[in-house]
């Protein structure tokens, strides 16, 4: 059976035996970095293509269909075009911050990749405070967006950045609280522990209605945090033309664009890990035979499948709903999501104490 775990351990063993202790570690680090960047590029291309196809089919269109079979090279061609374009810096812009901002956004997105378990025992860094780390780092992205909006010296950008800041800061709360619900149930902040606690069933099934509520709130919060419609106020193109990245062009624009999709992927990956069991196959209690069959599907496929399902859900939102207004957006968070998730957290704590889950 194919397993990423074996592949990694073979490579690691080979490096250890040929290079010796410090060098092998350094080479591993470089390899991991390269793999992460490659993963980003591929993910970006795949997700943009997926988005365009999903959008097209919902809008009774065909979508990209010219470059390559089914248009699969369309996004590659677009990226090539963006790479070749001139990266303009406006005259009145703060040049240093303007050029730094896309990298800030990108680095923030990359950092969250560390604790994500892509497959069984296939994780860059199984940090003991994994969930906390994710919550902390994901709010760093807003600095990049604020930087971009402020330094562009464009009023549309500034409004977009301010909206984005207000939005991310607010929705961080309910995202954190809904993650916390699972932390209470599983009793650990470590990602691998959370996944292992779902060996006899995913939390969304084991946790009954309170966890489903937490899951819905989490999905809404992720949509908002990644600035996706119906919460795409930061770039609301019918109001602010393109929001905080109005002035960006070429590769710097591409980095923002990529970061948006990476953020979606990461948000959905976290959601899949916490609520849907990550790489954990679908297990039901003590049905040994059924569980065994499920184990035959590689763990990486389970993870990717769940993540793609969540990504699809978020795309589905985008291509169905109109955009909220800025005050409604904040009302939704502070009047509805936050109280609900707080009460929900209490209920879940009670559940955890009394052991009211499977």
């Amino acid at each position: 059976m194919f397993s990423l775990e074996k592949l990694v351990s073979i490579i690691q063993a080979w490096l250890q035996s040929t290079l010796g202790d410090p060098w092998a570690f350094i080479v591993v680090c470089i390899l991991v970095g390269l793999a992460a960047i490659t993963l980003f590029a591929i993910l970006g291309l795949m997700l943009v293509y997926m988005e365009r196809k999903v959008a097209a089919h919902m809008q009774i269109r065909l979508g990209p269909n010219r470059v390559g079979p089914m248009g699969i090279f369309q996004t590659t061609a677009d990226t090539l075009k963006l790479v070749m374009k001139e990266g303009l810096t406006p005259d009145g812009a703060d040049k240093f911050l303007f050029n730094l901002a896309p990298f800030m956004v990108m680095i923030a997105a990359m950092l969250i990749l560390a604790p994500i378990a892509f497959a069984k025992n296939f994780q860059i860094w199984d940090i003991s405070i994994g969930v906390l780390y994710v919550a902390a780092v994901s709010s760093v992205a807003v600095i990049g967006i604020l930087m971009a909006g402020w330094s562009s010296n464009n009023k549309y950008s500034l409004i977009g950045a301010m909206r984005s800041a207000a939005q991310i800061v607010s929705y961080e709360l309910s995202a954190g609280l809904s993650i916390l619900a699972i932390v209470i149930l599983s009793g650990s902040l470590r990602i691998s522990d959370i996944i292992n606690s779902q060996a006899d069933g995913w939390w969304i099934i084991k946790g009954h209605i309170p966890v489903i509520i937490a899951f819905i709130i989490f999905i809404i919060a992720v949509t908002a945090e990644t600035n996706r419609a119906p919460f795409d106020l930061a770039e609301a193109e019918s109001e602010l033309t393109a929001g905080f990245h109005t002035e960006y062009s070429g590769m710097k624009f591409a980095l923002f664009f990529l970061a948006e999709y990476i953020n979606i992927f990461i948000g959905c990956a976290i959601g899949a890990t916490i609520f849907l069991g990550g790489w954990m196959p679908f297990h039901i209690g003590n049905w040994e035979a059924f569980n065994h069959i499920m184990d035959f599907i590689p763990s990486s496929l389970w993870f990717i499948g769940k993540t793609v399902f969540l990504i699809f859900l978020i795309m589905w939102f985008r291509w169905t709903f109109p955009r909220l207004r800025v005050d409604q957006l904040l009302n939704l968070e502070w009047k509805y999501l936050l109280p609900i998730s707080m009460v929900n957290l209490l209920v879940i704590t009670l559940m955890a104490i009394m052991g009211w889950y499977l």
Partner: protein
Amino acid sequence: MIEELGTNDQGDMIINVGPQHPSTHGVLHLVITLHGETVKKVEPHLGYIHRSIEKMSESLSYRQFSYVTSRMDYLSSHINNHACALTVEKGLQIEIPGRAQYIRVILDELTRIASHQLWWGALAMDLGAFTPFFYSFREREMINEIMEETCGARLTMNYIVPGGVMFDIHPDFQKKVKHFLKEFKSKIHEYNELVTGNVIFQNRTKGVGYISKENAISYGMTGPSGRGSGFICDVRKLHPYEMYNQLQFDEITEEGGDAFARYMVRIREMEQSMNIIEQLIDNIPEGDFLAKTKAVLKLPKGDYYTRVETARGEFGVYIISEGGTTPYRIKYRSPGFSNLSALNDMSVGGKLGDLMATMGTLDLVIPDIDR
């Protein structure tokens, strides 16, 4: 000209929305003063697509001048041509054949439906939902095909000419129109599911861009925008032309005065238009489609004013003739121009997003405003 400073004394931001902006639907230029997110002042700057059609028409003959009006409100080009033809016919006192009247009214109402469909998609797009646009275009395409078959063009038809219509209708016309009505009736529930009932949409439009009835009249807001405030202004009812007085249909008014009321007026108006077409489509009388007219048309000296109801409101053609072959002075009273003048009043105090909802429900067509 336009303040380049960016802020005024009170520290408000001054932003140019347009002339290149996704939600101004063309080259409308609004200079808005923003206090944070709150709109304090909206000042339209027009003229980016001003072609001085009124001056052009002074050198065009009475057969030629109406084609230009298709380029004003391009979404109700039929109705604009109709108004021009009616004015000339009034001046020459031509009796139009019954068949031509039926064809004109059916095409007018089809144009109205097509215009409202496009508006529906564009409004949803202004509010951030992209998908409705494609659904509305799917149905609009059917109307375009009917137009193409009968009139020979899809947008700027120039089909209604003084004395009747340019050609007879296509043999398939009745069949296609009935097919369209059936299809559209089976699809209109999608409009309600996707947009009307959507809670986000309702929150974005209810109570937004309010204008009272008195103000609407004072600003001369006509058409669905005026009727959304309860202003009874349907020219088809008040000053019936062609055979609108023989038809059974309701004038749709809503009392809300906000964006949602204007939205509902248009949605319900589409149903009324379908109702009108249904009454006519099976009864098109046989006979001539074009009355006999002289080769060179000369309007007697005098003033001629015709008002018709386009998809956006009351469209007036005011011709002053000195007895020559060309108009001495021609004035087009375009509905969008008056509707736009109320925009400042409607959007002050709202958020930036509300401005887009207000503009969307006013259904502005910029060439119609600039002329």
